[in-house]
């Protein structure tokens, strides 16, 4: 059987696909990206001098900051429209507002070099974290990979 199935195995794969391992959601992915935005913002602001090396670093930091801000928005969107359901909204009426403000902050962090906005973004994701784990009836502490 196994020998036969090896011979006739197709060379191509078709994915009956589902994003990620299905049903696996965690606001941690948004938090990690938000921390990267915060870190890149701080590093870009702290740069000194006006030589090519500085501009190279500045450009790299800004690029990564913008990319990670987009990751934050995408990860929050996945939680918002894939994980959360109408019954959650009934229990947490400020759910939409929480996501709206968090994604707005991600946009602000993408546009500006604004440490305060980045800290607010991390705080907003903590808010999402709290609601998310409450819907699962689990007490999961919020933590930062890179505490200030």
């Amino acid at each position, binding site marked *: 059987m196994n020998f036969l199935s090896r011979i*006739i195995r197709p060379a*191509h*794969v*078709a*994915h*009956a*696909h589902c*994003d990620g391992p299905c049903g696996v959601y965690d606001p941690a992915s948004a938090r990690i990206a938000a921390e990267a935005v915060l870190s890149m913002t701080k590093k870009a602001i702290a740069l000194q001098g006006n030589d090519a090396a500085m501009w190279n670093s500045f450009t790299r930091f800004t690029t990564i900051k913008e990319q990670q801000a987009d990751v934050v928005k995408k990860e929050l969107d996945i939680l918002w429209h*894939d994980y959360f359901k109408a019954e959650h909204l009934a229990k947490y009426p400020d759910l939409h507002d929480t996501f709206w403000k968090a994604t707005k902050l991600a946009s602000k962090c993408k546009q500006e070099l604004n440490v305060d906005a980045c800290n607010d973004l991390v705080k907003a994701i903590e808010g999402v974290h709290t609601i998310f784990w409450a819907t699962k009836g689990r007490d999961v502490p919020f933590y930062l990979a890179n505490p200030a």
Partner: protein
Amino acid sequence: MIAGSRSRGAPFLYGLAVAAVAVEAAFAAWWARRRYMRFEITGSSMLPALEPGDFVIVDTHAYRGVLPHRGDIVLAADPRKPDRTLVKRVGSVDLHQGISLLGDNAEESTDSRRFGPVSPEAIIGRVRWRYWPLRSVLRVR
């Protein structure tokens, strides 16, 4: 000379006929290989119609001059990752809005509900037959 060529005539024609059949068979095999491709299914979004590990035969000419029908199981390039081939069922076909693809197992499927409709050019072919595992060899519907 004339007698000699006559005696060689019959085997020559016979050989020609054999060669013609061989060429035809080779062409048919080549054509079938181009038209029909074998795929292994991974993932659970098409349960129960298709299970992960199934081997299927796909007709890549199924939609030459015809649009897919609602209900067909098709292969399509993933709009978010074109080198990934998706297998989904056609939910609806709209000339202007495109083709919406849905997994039979909606709970475990990323499909047009997420990435929107796809263009007809994204459709690779129609899944026609399952040939493995042997216990469930059948025409795929």
